[in-house]
C-alpha cells in the first residue's frame, strides 16, 4: 500500500542509479536526516548523548569500516580494536602537537594515518586468506596494543600511560574535553557518520566496490576477468582503515576523553565490531548501522529495564543481560544468518506486495 514503486518512473539515468530509487525510501531517508540534524540536537541531554547516540554513531563508523573489508572484500580482520587505537593515538599526538588546528582536520588525518598502518598489515592478504589472514590481523591487534603500551612517545610519557583529550574546538565550538555540550558531541559524530556512510555507499556501488565484491566472491575468477587483486585488496584495507581510524579518533577524543590502550582497544573491541557486522549483515551499509544499534543499545536498554524499571539487583541484571543478548544473537543468527539487513530486505519485499501477496 504505502511502500511500492508503482507510478514511480525514472526518466534519466541518474534517477535510475540513485541510492534510493523508490520514492518512499528516499523520503524516509530525508526524514531520518532531518530528524537527526534538525530535531535531536535541540532535545539531546548528556545522558542520551554519552550513553546512547555518541557510542552508537561511532561504532557505526567502525562497523562500516570493517564491513568494507570483511563484508565487501571478504578479508576477515580481528584487528579492528588495535586499528581504532591507531586512530585514537594519532589523534592524540596531533591534538597535542598542533593545538590550534581544528578537529575537523585532525580526525580525517588520524584516519589517513590509520589507513597507512592498516594497509601495511593488509600486505599479507596478498599471500594468505581466510583463517590465516585472521590470525595475521590478530597479530596486529596484539602487536599494536603492546606498542602503544610500551613506547612512551605515543602517550607523551604520562606517568600512567593514559592519553587524555585536551579541550579542542571546531569554529569556536568546543567538541572535546569535559566542557563539551551534549549537542556538539552528537553533531560532530553525526557529521562524520553521514560523510562516511555516503562515501562508503558510493564507493561500494562503483567500480572500486565491484572489484572488492568480485574478489570476495571468487578471487581467481576476479583476476581472470581483469580485477587487480593487489589493488582491490589494498584499497579495501586502506578505505577500511580510514573509517576505523576516524571511529577510533572520535571514540577517544569525543566519547571517552581519556583512554588506555589495553582496556579501550583490546581484543574484545575487535570482536564487538565483528559481531556488529555479523548481526547487522555482511556487505550492507544499513546492516552496519543496525548491528551497531543492536550491540550498543541493547545492553543499555536491558539495564534500564532490569535495574531502573524492575529494581532488580545490579549483578543479577548484569548477568541476565549477558544471557539475553547472547540468546538474541544466537536466535538471530539461526533465524536469519544474513543479519538484520536481510530481515529489513525481506520486510521491504513483503511490504511491496502487501496486502495482496499473490
Amino acid at each position, binding site marked *: 500500500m504505502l511502500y511500492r514503486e508503482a507510478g514511480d518512473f525514472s526518466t534519466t539515468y541518474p534517477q535510475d542509479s540513485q541510492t534510493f530509487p523508490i520514492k518512499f525510501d528516499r523520503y524516509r531517508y530525508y526524514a531520518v536526516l532531518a530528524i537527526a540534524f534538525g530535531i535531536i540536537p535541540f532535545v539531546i541531554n*548528556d*545522558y542520551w548523548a*554519552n*550513553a546512547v547516540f555518541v*557510542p552508537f554513531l561511532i561504532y557505526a563508523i567502525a562497523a562500516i569500516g570493517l564491513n568494507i573489508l570483511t563484508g565487501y572484500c571478504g578479508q576477515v580482520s580481528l584487528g579492528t580494536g588495535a586499528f581504532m587505537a591507531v586512530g585514537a593515538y594519532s589523534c592524540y599526538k596531533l591534538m*597535542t602537537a598542533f593545538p590550534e588546528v581544528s578537529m575537523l582536520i585532525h580526525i580525517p588525518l588520524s584516519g589517513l594515518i590509520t589507513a597507512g598502518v592498516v594497509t601495511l598489515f593488509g600486505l599479507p592478504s596478498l599471500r594468505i586468506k581466510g583463517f590465516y589472514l585472521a590470525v595475521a590481523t590478530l597479530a596486529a591487534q596484539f602487536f599494536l596494543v603492546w606498542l602503544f*603500551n610500551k613506547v612512551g612517545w605515543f602517550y607523551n610519557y*604520562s*606517568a*600512567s*600511560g*593514559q592519553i*587524555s583529550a*585536551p*579541550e579542542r574546538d571546531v569554529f569556536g565550538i568546543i567538541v572535546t*574535553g*569535559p*566542557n563539551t555540550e551534549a549537542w556538539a558531541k552528537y553533531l560532530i559524530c553525526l557529521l562524520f557518520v553521514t560523510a562516511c556512510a555516503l562515501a562508503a555507499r558510493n564507493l561500494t556501488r562503483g567500480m572500486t566496490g565491484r572489484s572488492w565484491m568480485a574478489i570476495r566472491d571468487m578471487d581467481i575468477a576476479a583476476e581472470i576477468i581483469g580485477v587487480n587483486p593487489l589493488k582491490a585488496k589494498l584499497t579495501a584495507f586502506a578505505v577500511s582503515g580510514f573509517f576505523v581510524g576516524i571511529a577510533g579518533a572520535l571514540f577517544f577524543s569525543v566519547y*571517552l*576523553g*581519556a*583512554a*588506555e590502550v*589495553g*582496556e*579501550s582497544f*583490546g581484543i574484545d573491541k575487535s570482536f564487538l565490531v565483528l559481531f556488529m557486522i555479523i548481526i547487522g549483515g555482511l556487505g550492507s551499509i544499513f546492516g552496519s548501522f543496525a548491528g551497531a544499534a543492536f550491540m550498543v543499545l541493547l545492553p*543499555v536498554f536491558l*539495564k534500564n529495564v532490569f*535495574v*531502573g524499571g*524492575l*529494581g*532488580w*539487583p*545490579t*549483578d543479577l*541484571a*548484569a*548477568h541476565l543481560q549477558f544471557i539475553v543478548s547472547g540468546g538474541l544473537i544466537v536466535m538471530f543468527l539461526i533465524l536469519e544468518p544474513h543479519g538484520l539487513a536481510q530481515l529489513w530486505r525481506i520486510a521491504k519485499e513483503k511490504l511491496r506486495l502487501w496486502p495482496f501477496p499473490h
Partner: protein
Amino acid sequence: MKLTTLTIAAVMAAGPVMADLVFPSLSYRTGPYAANGIPFADGYEDYFTLLNERDGGIGGVPIRVIECETGYNTEKGVECYESTKGEGALVYQPLSTGITYQLIPKATADGIPVHSMGYGRTSAKNGQVFSNIFNYPANYWDGASHAVTHILNENSGDISGKKIALVYHNSAYGKEPIRTLQELSGKHGFELMEVAVDHPGQEQKSQWLQIRQQRPDYVLMWGWGVMNQVAIQEAANIRFPMDKFIGIWWSGSENDVLPAGDGASGYKALTFHNLGKDYPVYADLQKYVVDAGKSAGAGDQLGTALYNRGMYAAMLAAEAAKTAQEISGNSDISPAEMRAGMEALEITQAKMEAIGLPNFGPTFSVSCDNHGGDGYGAVAQWDAGAGQWSLITDYYQSDQSIITPLVEEDSAAFAAENAITPGCS
C-alpha cells in the same frame, strides 16, 4: 521476598521527590574483578543502610544509595556516571583507576566531587589543580614508599644492591607506582625490575618464571581482581618466600590469599585502615542491618578487609557530608557544598571513637593544598592457620621528600595540559 522488597524500594525511591542525600555506588559484582568488587560494594552500602536505620540518615536527611554495575569497564563507568549524576549525586567513588581518570575532567566540569580513596590519579593530592578530586588518606605513591620503607626496616636501613621486582597490572593503575619506585631506587640504590601482567591476569606463568630466573630479593605487587589470586598461587608454586612478597592494599583481601591455602601464609599487604571486626560499629551493623535482613549482596562479607574498606569509604563520605551540613547550615546539601565539606574534613581519634571505629585509621585533615591526607599506612600479614590478617607494624608516614616533588611535577603537567590556573577558590 527480597526481590519484592527491592522492587517496592525502587518504586518508592523513584516515586515522590523527597529531600535525600544521594550516594551513587559504582560497583562491580560481575567480571574478573568481582571477587574484590563485591565486598567493597557491600561495605559501602551497609554503612549507609546503618545510618539510615539507626540515625535516620545524616543530619536527619535520609540517604539514598544508587547502585550501578560497571564491571570495572570504563565505558560502562561513564554510562553509570551520566545516568546517576542527574539524581543529585554528592560524591563518586568508582573503585577503579581507569574510571577515575575518565571522571576527573567530567566531574570537575559538573562540579561533583570524586573520592578515589587509595587509588586514582596520585597527583590529585594537589587540590590547587584538582579542585574536585580527593584521594585521602593515602595514595599509590605513599604505598610504594611504605613498601620500600618496610624493606629498609627489615634490612636495617641498607638495601643497596638488592633487587626488587614489581609485578603490576598493565594499566594506568599498575603503572602509577613506577615513577616513585624509580626515584626510590635511585635514592636507596636497589635495582628495580618491572614485570607487567596484562588484563585480566589469569595467566602469569611466564612472569613468575622470569622471577624464578632473576631471583629478586623482594616482590611488590600492584594487582587487582583475579590477578591477585593467580599471582599469590604462582608465588607459592615457585616457593618464593611469602614474607618477601608485599602487595599494595588492593592486593590484600581474604579472597586473594584463600585460594593458595597454606602456601599463602606470611604474605604481606599494605593497608591504610584496620582489619577485622573487633569494633563497636559491628554490633550496630549486626543489629540494624544484618538481623533486619537489609544487608547488601549476599551479606556474607562482614569483617573482610575490603568490606572494611568499603565501610571506611562510606564513613569518610558520611563525615564529609556532616561537615558540609555544618559549614553550609543546610541539611539537604548540594554537590558543591559536599565538595567544601570534603575539603574541610578532619578525622580525629574522638570522631572515630564516636562512630564506633576507635583507632580504625590514621588521623588526618584535608585542606585545599592537600587533598590526599598525610600518607600514613601499615603492613599487614596473612596467617593462613588462623585465617586472618594482622597488622605487623604501626602506621608510619611515607617518604614525603620523594613524593611531594613528584606530586608537584605531575599536577603541574596536568595543569599545563588542561590550562588550569592552580589556586584555591
